[in-house]
């Protein structure tokens, strides 16, 4: 049997075995995290949004992500349900660099912001690898000065651990609304994200190694999901950080719904992956060819009107290729349109844009 054929068979078998484990793995992670943080939840009466059911949904949304970027983006989106503002910093060699923010008036400014980790809460969290809460005055002064102090003067910093190392930090505060910071809920979300990133990382490594799924639970992963992060000042593109391939995609993830249930075949997962990449490429090209229009559209909240022709031509191209494939349910074109062109703010597309 030719070597490449044998490799193909092994890859398919491994991928199928991994897929079978996905649903139960995800559920066990959810339960494990909830069990671990249960005591914290029972001590502090849950707010409306931090009920177990609400948290379970938030965790499920995070775990619907199949790439590093999707997972971290979901973490941020759900973090602001339990806080006023949130930011994620990637930690490398003891330095923390801004990745994305949510809830700030100038989210873009978070990118590549270098957090001072030499003292205060930052230093303590990095050293203890446990979440830290405290006064804004005990946090990086440069950050507080640039983004403003939260109304109640309290901040939280949570470490996102991968293989027992702090790979990222989640900053959260109540922003302009005192009392909205729910540290226990945030702890759940960050722990769930850590666990899910480990799962994805191990799955990817297992696939790469061709190891059967049974070994997945014990095999140490040499794959660092944050390895691809490259801040702007390094001269490397952010794009790289987005390119961690999906080990597999659940249909739930594709449709943006619950993470439980049906799992895609490896072939379908590959189609989803390609469709998403193609949608991303189409958006990149719209941005490249129309930089001024994109900037104006964002400013005036009418991106769709200004770029309607390019958007619709791109959509037609996308649908021609993926409209009749299993990836059609993923709606990746609109997802990327909102994520990439509108920077996750659908209102920037304008009133004439309909999903």
């Amino acid at each position, binding site marked *: 049997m030719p070597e490449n054929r044998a490799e193909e068979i092994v890859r398919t078998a491994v991928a199928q075995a991994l897929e079978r484990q996905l649903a139960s793995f995800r559920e066990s992670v959810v339960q494990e995290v909830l069990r671990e943080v249960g005591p914290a939840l029972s001590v502090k009466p849950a707010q409306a949004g931090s009920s177990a059911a609400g948290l379970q949904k938030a965790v499920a949304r995070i775990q619907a992500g199949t790439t590093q970027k999707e997972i971290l983006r979901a973490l941020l989106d759900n973090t602001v349900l339990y806080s006023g503002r949130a930011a994620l910093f990637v930690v490398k060699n003891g330095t923390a660099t801004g990745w994305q923010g949510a809830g700030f008036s100038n989210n873009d400014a978070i990118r590549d912001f270098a957090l001072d980790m030499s003292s205060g809460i930052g230093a303590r969290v990095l050293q203890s690898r446990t979440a830290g809460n405290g006064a804004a005055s005990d946090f990086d002064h440069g950050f507080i000065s640039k983004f403003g102090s939260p109304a109640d003067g309290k901040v939280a910093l949570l470490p996102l651990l991968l293989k027992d190392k702090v790979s990222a930090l989640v900053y959260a505060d109540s922003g302009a609304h005192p009392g909205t910071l729910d540290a226990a809920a945030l702890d759940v979300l960050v722990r769930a994200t850590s666990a899910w990133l480990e799962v994805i990382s191990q799955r990817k490594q297992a696939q790469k190694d061709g190891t059967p799924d049974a070994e997945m639970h014990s095999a140490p992963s040499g794959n660092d999901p944050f390895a691809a992060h490259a801040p702007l000042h390094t001269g490397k593109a952010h794009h790289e950080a987005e390119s961690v391939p999906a080990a597999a995609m659940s249909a739930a993830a594709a449709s943006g719904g619950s993470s439980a249930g049906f799992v895609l075949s490896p072939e379908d997962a590959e189609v989803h992956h390609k469709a998403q*990449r193609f949608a991303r490429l189409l958006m990149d090209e719209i941005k490249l060819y129309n930089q001024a229009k994109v900037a104006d559209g964002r400013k005036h909240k009418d991106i769709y009107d200004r770029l309607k022709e390019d958007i619709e031509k791109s959509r037609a191209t996308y649908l021609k290729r993926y409209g009749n494939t299993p990836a059609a349910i993923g709606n990746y074109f609109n997802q990327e349109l909102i994520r990439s062109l509108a920077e996750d703010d659908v209102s920037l597309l304008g009133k004439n844009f309909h999903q």
Partner: protein
Amino acid sequence: MSFINFAAREINCKIVYYGAGLGGKTTNLQYIYQKTAEQQKGKMISLATETERTLFFDFLPLDLGSVRGFKTRIHLYTVPGQVFYDASRKLILRGVDGIVFVADSQQERMDANAEALDNLMSNLKEHGYDFNKIPYVLQLNKRDLPNILPVDTLTKDLRRKDEPVLEAVAFQGQGVFETLKEIARQVLVELKKGS
């Protein structure tokens, strides 16, 4: 494929610069056009719309030699790079004698390079052309930028057969004529085979 103008005693060949949007195809052509003597070249014809920049011109290189007493006139074309102009790209490939794939060396354009390369293979197939028999050069452009991938990586990911790989900084002219000479050489070899 090439056609012969008996009256002018010229063999006309078509070379297409293919690649992802804003990768430097047009820049290659513009540089060649600027550096070619007036008496050797025809008009530069631009099929440019607001976003689509398709160029065409022909010229008669003096140093290419002749095939059985016929001079070789080369027609250079670019294709629109943006993904959704596929129909234009397919049309321009018709009758092609040689292809230069202009790859953007920036790492964030690797998906675009891969897409353009797949698109090239697909369009050649639709025309019934055998890629393995078509003269072909891979040009790695924008080598002056900071966020580029190493040549080895690009070559590994983008090379489709044993084609020559040339580095370029097209807007400075680096690698532009080297690429043209290589593709013209290959085309001429094919012509001589056929003669």
